[in-house]
Every structure is written in structure tokens, then in C-alpha cells.
């Protein structure tokens, strides 16, 4: 092997053989969860879902050495998905001005889903962090500890966001939610009040 070959080989080293490796196993085991996550984040306009899912796995491929072993690998992937979706939203926001001109004539894409319920509307009106907490804990079914790993915050912060979200949702939807009504302060958060 020439020095040049070695140099190229070193730079190419992180690339796995996609055909028959841990990466393919990771893909097969996680595609359902990752696709659902992206769909929830993009709903109702799912036209970019395939592209974003592919991008998520491209990131995973580039950083295959960073992917932790199961079951943490799924949380790691959801963390990547979160960032890819956020990146996509920022790009979309930049294009919003152009799109605004076109929006009146925009046809409904066949992949768009009907999500016009009052409940979803209420979720959409939650502050971003609370909406994200509901997404991960209620729809993805993650524990607060796992959701915290995806977001990169403390489990306590996730609990607080879920609590606030539930209260806002129960107020907006005019239903009684015993969990939302519960006072988190003293017992859950070790705060001693007189």
C-alpha cells in the first residue's frame, strides 16, 4: 500500500460496508420508529418525510462509530432525527416568504394526512418545548428519562414540560385531567415549602 493509499484509507475508515453490517440491522430495527417520529414532526405535510429519513440514516452512517449499543441506539437515532427535523424547519422558514406567495394555489399533496382535530390543534398551540415533550412521551411512548436523552435535558425538565402541556391541553379542551391537576412541587421535585 502506497502512502497515498494509506492516507485515503484512513479518511475512508469510518465508512461501513452498508450491505451486511450492523448498520443494516440498525436500519431494519429502527425504520418504523424513526419514520413515525418524522411523520409526527412534519404532519400534516409529509412530502419530505422520505428525504429526511434518508438524511437521518446518512448521518448515522457517517457517525456509525458514535452509535451506542441497543437500546440506546434508538434514542441516539431519535436525537439525530430531532436535529435533522429542526434543521429542515429552519430551512423551510427561510423559504417561507417564497412559499407564502404560492400557498393559495398549493394543491394538497397525496401524502398529506388529515389532522385537523381539536386535540391536534391544541397540541400545535403548545410552546415548542412542551409540544416536543408530548410528542416523545405520549406518542413515541418514551419514558421521561429516555425523552430527556433525546432532547438533551434533565428528566425533571421533561416532567415539567409534560405537566405544563397537560394542564394547557386540559384547559383548552375543557376536560379534567387528574395528572395535570396534580401539584408537582413538593414531592416530585424535592422542594420544601413551609
Amino acid at each position, binding site marked *: 500500500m502506497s502512502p497515498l493509499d494509506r492516507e485515503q484509507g484512513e479518511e475512508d475508515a469510518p465508512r461501513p460496508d452498508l450491505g451486511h453490517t450492523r448498520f443494516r440491522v440498525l436500519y431494519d430495527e429502527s425504520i418504523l420508529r424513526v419514520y413515525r417520529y418524522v411523520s409526527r414532526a412534519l404532519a400534516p405535510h409529509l412530502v419530505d418525510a422520505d*428525504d429526511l429519513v434518508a438524511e437521518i440514516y446518512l448521518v448515522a452512517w457517517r457517525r456509525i462509530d458514535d452509535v451506542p449499543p441497543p437500546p440506546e441506539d434508538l434514542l441516539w437515532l431519535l436525537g439525530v432525527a430531532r436535529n435533522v427535523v429542526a434543521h429542515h424547519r429552519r430551512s423551510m422558514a427561510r423559504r417561507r416568504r417564497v412559499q407564502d406567495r404560492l400557498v393559495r394555489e398549493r394543491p394538497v399533496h397525496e401524502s398529506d394526512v388529515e389532522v385537523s382535530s381539536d386535540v391536534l390543534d391544541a397540541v400545535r398551540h403548545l410552546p415548542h418545548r412542551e409540544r416536543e415533550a408530548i410528542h416523545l412521551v405520549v406518542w413515541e411512548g418514551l419514558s421521561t428519562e429516555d425523552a430527556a436523552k433525546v432532547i438533551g435535558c434533565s428528566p425533571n425538565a421533561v416532567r415539567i414540560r409534560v405537566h405544563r402541556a397537560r394542564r394547557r391541553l386540559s384547559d383548552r379542551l375543557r376536560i379534567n385531567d387528574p395528572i395535570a391537576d396534580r401539584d408537582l412541587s413538593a414531592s416530585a421535585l424535592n422542594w420544601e*415549602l413551609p
Partner: protein
Amino acid sequence: MTDLDTLLKSADPARDVAVPAPGSMHAERIWARVNECSSQSPHLHRARWLVVPVVLAAAVAIALLFVGVASSPLGGRPNSAPVALRRLALVASVQPALTLTGHQYLHSSYDASVQATLSTVGSNPTPWPSATVSATIDQWSDLGTVTCTQATLGSATFSSSGAKAAWTSSGLLDQPSPATTSSCSSAGTVASLNRGDSGAINISSLPVDPSVLARELTDGTTGITRVDQPMDQSLAGLDAAFQRAVLLLAEPTVGATPQFWSALLRAMSTFPGITLLGTETTHSGATGLAFAGENDSVQAVVVLSPSTGALLEARNIDVYSFLSLYNNLLTSFLPAAEKFSGGGVSAAFQWLDPIGTPSVVDSVPAAVGQVPLAPSATIDVTMKPGTTQPEVKALLDDTSSQLKGTTTITGIGDALHLELTLNGPADQVNAAVKALRASSIVASVVVFTS
């Protein structure tokens, strides 16, 4: 499972989505796309992103040759980002170190332009009105968790008449009221609710070995939460390391030795995709070398002084320590009737120019606000239905009067929910919480603290 859980489950946006099962044609189509992109050589992959930067770099090189604009203090003309950064690293190593004692503040001044987009006014969704606001900012940061910010805002300017119409139709003002805002935050004392957003960053613990520092910036393992997990940033983005380095340049920092700044610039010179944009003039009129990260959408840019390596301008960045400014900016453009109900704003600096060099002072001017006292508690207050805004204001005034420290409204969800940060001695905070609970207009009080 409660009624709310049932409703939420039934409203799952992914419920009716055709999800690709493993091995299905749909899943294989996505796999083929991943395979196709990943089979490209990293050199080729990178080359796609480098086309524009290379053209720009070539243009800059030609411009430097023929126009002779850049006057490097080192006598040479940098012709690529790594070379230029390594040269700056040499001059950065002669800069003096800045230190701060426990009772002092780092005072920094900036001129800036902020792009603000509002998602809600009160609880009402908006058509995402967006405006650009100029700001003259003074900031005081201590070694702990306190940051005080005073900003004088300009009027809202718009990219088009449509943008102005969206702003106006959302009930927003085009002149800030008040034009000068100030606040002090001490988010760090409620550890469960913050990510170390306030106070100067002490970077004395960061490595001065460029390769080690580069690795920590790439992996997000510096141990400084504000840097490792930048606000609203795609960590999957190609320029995550660059953006972390930009934050270290832009945030108030103490404890950095000349060797550190030199190491930072050397570390930046190793980041893939970093581009030398050439010699540029900042909005404040300074001339420096501009570098961009590798990104396909919002490209972060820094302009660095050719004589010191110091930051002259940062563009397209979010900076944690200015969170309170974003909040104040929102409040300034809300009509009086909505001041208490707040809204949702997303904001980022279009450009941020440090003015002068940071100085060490012994106190924060009284006009800026009282510096928060520890301990703090963040309190979620739910009002009873029908509560009026004057009643809420009276309650807040009453709460403030019970604290020797300060009461800071850090965020407001809607008319019936207030989020307060109470700062003061524990007995006073507890007394204030007790009074809030006893108020006839309060339905519930939830206290969060670490």
C-alpha cells in the same frame, strides 16, 4: 389512562401514515437513497459543498492579488481558511488574558440586528410575521449565573410590504415601547430548568491543545452546556463544530489564556468545510477576515480581526446569553393590552458586532436592574378563570414587594398561566409562594427548583 391520554392517542399524527415496514419496497427505496449517497467518496461528497466556497475563495485570492485590500500584520496574504486561521492564531497568542473575581462583572457592548418571528400573540396564532430590529446592547455577566442585559431597540423593519402587513395584522407595534429594555436573569440557580444560559462562561478548563479542543468542539463534549447544545441548532449539521467555536467567540467568556484563543483558531483551521470568504467590512465599519461554516441553509459567519484574531462580527447565530433580550424584544413590540399575555417569538442575530473590548466592573448600574439573589424558584401560577390583567398586575406587584431581591417574569404562557422566577432569600421566597397560594385569584401554584 386519563381522558386526555385517550384523546392524545387518538390524535396521533402518525396514526394513519403509511409507515415503511422493514424489507418493504418503501423501506428499500429509502435504503437505496442512503446507499446511493453514502457510496460517494467523502471527497466527492464534500466537493459538492465546496463548489461555491472554492469559487469564492478563488475570487478573493484574485481580488487580494490585484486590489491588495488585505493587509495582514504578518506580511502575508492568507489564501485559504486553514492558512488564514493559523496565521491569526499566531497574533491571537499575544492577547492579554481577562480575569474576573467573584464580585465583579464582565461588561460587554454590542451593536446588533435581530431577526424576530412571532408564532403567537397572546394565545392567538399569527401568520408568522417577521421583522428585523436593530439593537444597541450592554451586557453584564458574573462568574456564576447572572447576566444583566440592557438594550435600546430600533423600529421594526420589514423585508416587504407583505411582511409589514402580516406584522400589523397580528396587532404588533412597529415602534418599540419601551425602546430601552433591561433585565437581569439568574437562570442557573434552578438547575433543572436551565442549561446554564446566564453568566460568563469560564473556559479556563478547556484544553489548549488544538487537536483536543477540535475534537471536543466536534463531539460537543466541552462540558459547557451552552456550547455543547447550542440553541435551535442542528447538531447533525456539518458545521456544528464551527458554530460551537463561534459561540465561544461571541459569548461573554472569562478565564481564557492567550494560548486558548490561539488553540481555538488552530482548532477551527482543522474543521472540514470552513471557508475563507475574504476581507469584509462589518456593519460597525471594521475590516477583517470572514470565515463561513459548511451549511446548506443558514450559514454562520465570523469576521475576525486581522491584527488580534478577535471577533469583529458574527452572523446568523443564536446566543444563549441574549435570551432575555429576545424576550424583552417581544414585549416591546406587543401592544399594551397584550403585555401580560405575551406570545411566542423565535429570534436570532442576523449580525452581532462586539463594540470595544470587554471590561471588568464592580457593579451593574442601578438603572439596569437589581442583580438576582440566590436561591431562586421558578413558579407556575394558574389564575382562576375570569381574572383580569389589572388583578394579575396587582398580584405581581404584591409578590415583588415581599422580596428584597427581584421578581422576574421569565415567560408567560397565556392569560391564565404565569411563569415567575423569584429571587431572594429562601424565607422570603417561601413567604411569597405562600401568599400566592392564598390569593383569591390564584387557582394553583406549582414550584420548581433543583
